[in-house]
């Protein structure tokens, strides 16, 4: 879907921002870019929709070289949530959301319909449609920014720290929403964040960057347990591990009951949908190695076992 081959870019001579970077984003992937401030995440994202042209290297979008794309058509094929939201202050929320459709000359009814659909999708009430951006909180603006990027139903969506201004609780809700959009609408997403937990929760592939280079890239398991670079190790570290325990569900590590213990002797239970950390906590609190796991309907599905955990193939 998106291919970078040996791409370099600099704004000023002698100060490279992106250095010989290669990256492939396949169809249906959810790629999260993470790294320290100024490492080039936004720059990389802007190269994906042609806002910034690379000095050297090759970029292909949907198999076609960047230079071969009509720059406007390319941008219309890619949803973009910019880092500072950038809502249009003179337009209502409805018109903001429908902007991508407006410039592609969609009918009024289509635009209205779509705006109504999307405002619900991002969890705002319909009466917000008539408001202007200055009447919204920072977090509400970011939701509108996400809705706006989805309007023309692009296959690829680029999101630059789209949840930076949302509080912790709503952040979780919106993250789930983004995962839902990703899974149900079958999108390819490239997502920038500063938040390690967010990266581990959302990404099917996590890319750790530093000073314009990719330090490490892989699945959440690979990034948390098998990073090969010092930088990524330090950057992700225990915080990443903790996030991992907070995110991976117990259902992914259920094992059979350990030999001499029978199901009836188990008194402690967790739900299969709980994160690993809940199971670990219960074990530690009660000084046991093994507890039972039930699914949402209350059916026994197996055991959660600290010994089993270490045998997991991450």
């Amino acid at each position, binding site marked *: 879907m998106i291919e970078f081959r040996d791409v370099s870019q600099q704004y000023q001579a002698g100060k490279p921002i992106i250095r010989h970077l290669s990256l492939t984003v396949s169809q249906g992937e959810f790629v999260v870019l993470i790294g320290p401030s100024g490492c080039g995440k936004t720059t990389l994202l802007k190269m994906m929709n042609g*806002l910034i042209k690379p000095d050297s290297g090759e970029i292909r979008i949907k198999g076609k070289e960047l230079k071969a794309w009509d720059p406007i058509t390319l941008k219309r094929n890619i949803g973009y949530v910019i880092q500072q939201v950038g809502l249009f*202050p003179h337009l209502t929320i409805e018109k903001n959301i429908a*902007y*991508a459709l407006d*410039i592609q000359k969609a009918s009024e009814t289509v635009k209205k319909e779509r705006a109504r659909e999307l405002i619900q999708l991002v969890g705002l009430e319909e009466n917000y449609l008539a408001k202007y951006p*200055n009447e919204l909180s920072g977090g509400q603006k970011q939701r509108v920014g996400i809705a*706006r990027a989805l309007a023309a139903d692009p296959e690829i969506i680029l999101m630059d720290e789209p949840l930076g201004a949302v509080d912790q609780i709503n952040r979780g809700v919106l993250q789930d929403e983004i995962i839902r959009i990703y899974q149900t609408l079958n999108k390819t997403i490239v997502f920038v964040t500063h938040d390690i937990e967010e990266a581990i929760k959302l990404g099917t592939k996590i890319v750790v960057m530093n000073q314009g280079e990719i330090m490490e890239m892989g699945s959440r398991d690979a990034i948390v347990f098998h990073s090969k670079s010092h930088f990524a190790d330090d950057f992700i570290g225990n915080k990443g591990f903790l996030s991992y325990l907070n995110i991976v569900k117990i259902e992914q590590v259920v094992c059979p009951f350990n030999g001499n213990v029978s199901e009836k002797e188990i008194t402690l239970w967790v739900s299969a949908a709980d994160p690993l950390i809940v199971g670990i906590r219960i074990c530690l609190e009660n000084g046991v190695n093994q507890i039972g796991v039930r699914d949402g309907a209350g059916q026994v599905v197996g055991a959660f076992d600290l010994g089993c955990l270490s045998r997991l193939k991450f």
Partner: protein
Amino acid sequence: MEFIKNLGELLKTRSDFFIELLLQHLVLSLIAIVIITVVGVTTGVLIAKSQKAASVVIGLTNVLYTIPSIAMFGFFVSITGIGNTTAIIALVIYGLLPVIRNTYVGLTEVDDQILEAAVGMGSTPWQLLSKIQFPLALPVIIAGIRSMVVMTIALAGIASFIGAGGLGVAIWRGITTNFDEMTVAGSLLVALLAFVADGILGIIEKRLLRRTK
């Protein structure tokens, strides 16, 4: 007191005369205002694309702006003769500066992030201008037009010195015949016209500001 009574008397008895001059004044100013707005806004839009062009054009209009009005009128009389045409040319040249400058400033001061979002979503250059930049710059542009309108209406009073119509005729006649009431009546009407025009534009400006802030 006597003077004010005389003034009222004059305006009443010669009302036809004053109304005609007022209309002439209005038409003269309006023609100039329309030309200035069209030329000024277009120029402002065109130079907004290039900083170099902008500094040249704005510098030039700045220089023209500092030429005393009498000298400017005199200069054009020597080229295009006396009459309305000359008056309009001079008025246009004076009025361009605030409109060009404000259009340019308004357009170039639109927040980069907003532009980036619009470009990033695939706006064409024309869509960017018409749907984003221009509406956002509108309050600043209107402010420029507002000061230009007041200035043009006032300046049109001097245009009669070079044979154009308008309320300047009354002022001029008052001065040359030592008829103070006539001079004051003409000036008052010019001021009134400028005041009303300013008020109307002020209301429009406020409406626009409420939307975009």
